[in-house]
């Protein structure tokens, strides 16, 4: 199944558990260090660097790109390291995430409550995934290097539905 971002609630509801989905459109990368910063910004009442509505956050930090490349290898990082921060972001409107591995109960519950989706990308398939990235722009936290908040345009990025809108999960 192919989907486009921003993802509408109707499209999200169509996605089946453990189905392979190909994403086209803008997605946003962030890892733990950036999550910590976003949560601090929320606590201070500051505006988020991008609109959460319908958008997908990808837990990843790329390798440096060679001069002729759009981006270096970029696969998913382990999601549980984000679990401490995710409920705060989900309450702020973030509904769709891509990572790797299981989430804790609190995160599963908050995803379920907002009809969100947790996708997993294929851990380690990072060279292949870099080929799906057509453009990249750092939009916040540049000082974090690989952990900066990046806006990527991807074409047919392969991911698997790990938690669907009805709160069912493959783990």
């Amino acid at each position, binding site marked *: 199944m192919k989907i486009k971002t921003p993802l509408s609630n109707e499209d999200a509801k169509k996605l089946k558990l*453990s189905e*392979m989905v190909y994403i086209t459109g803008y997605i946003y990368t962030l890892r733990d*260090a950036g999550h910590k910063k976003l949560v601090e910004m929320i606590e201070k009442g500051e505006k988020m660097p991008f609109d959460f509505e319908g958008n997908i956050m990808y837990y*990843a*930090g*790329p*390798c*440096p*790109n*060679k001069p002729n*490349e759009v981006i*270096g*290898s*970029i*696969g998913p*990082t*382990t999601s*549980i390291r984000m679990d401490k921060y995710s409920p705060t972001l989900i309450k702020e409107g973030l509904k769709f995430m891509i990572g*790797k*591995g*299981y989430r804790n109960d609190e995160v599963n519950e908050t995803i379920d409550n907002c009809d969100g989706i947790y996708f*997993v990308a*294929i*851990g*380690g*398939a*990072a*060279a*292949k*995934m*870099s*080929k799906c990235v057509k453009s990249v722009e750092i939009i916040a936290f540049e000082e974090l*290097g*690989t952990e900066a908040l990046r806006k990527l345009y991807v074409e047919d990025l*392969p991911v*698997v539905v790990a938690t669907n809108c009805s709160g069912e999960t*493959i*783990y």
Partner: protein
Amino acid sequence: MRKIKSSIIVEEVAKLCIDANCNLSSSIYNGYKEAKLKERDKLSKDVLEILIENADIAKNEQKPICQDTGMAVVFIEMGNKVVIEGDLLEVAINKGVAKGYEEGYLRKSVVKDPIRRENTKDNTPAVIHYNIVEGDKLKIVVAPKGFGSENMSALKMLMPSDGMEGVKDVIINTVKNAGANPCPPIIVGVGIGGTMEKSALLAKEALLREVGESNKDDYWKSVEEEMLQKINKLNIGVGGFGGMTTALSVNINTYPTHIAGLPVAVNIGCHVTRHSEIIL
């Protein structure tokens, strides 16, 4: 005495860092292919196909197989008739790591302090293990270790009365608990015996073995086979999506230990468990 210039070591370590990160070992690559033939589930087959394609892209374009290009673990076997001229060996290795990670466009993933966490920006320092052996050669093994799998590793100080069953439980429970996090299909490195740190080192060294290479001792070889079978029945599967390929290999290394102890370390390696070596 045989003299080796430190500048040569810098160059070789840099090349090994790049080679290990871009070229998947053929034994793991073949492991993917065999698993793809065996798997019945469509999703598992599709994911294995993506892993094969990923390794091909990495090799053809000399780009990292995985974005986590790891912390560089370096094993040195230095002949007792070798002297290094120039920099200290440790300095040369770290210069080589910095060079390799910069020139190979590898990700710099090392922080200076475990709590204050400032990136060292050149992926140094490496974790280095030295061994002095007979002869006039210098063997360097670079094994970049990703932390998705490192984080799922475990060490237990069992009691001798826990015996083989206790050891098996530690192995199975560690793999179960790891689930999808260490990017299965995994390589399971197990160290049994020695002291606490020795068992961890044995487990790390076990990850250097090629897939398909067994323990030379028949007793331990059969334990490896039994554990591999049991692990592949856990239904964690490729990418954690279920199926019969959770691990490609279980590699056990052992060492004599104390009358009162039974240390067991399990070091999980992912499907891009990497190492490259050279003998100078």
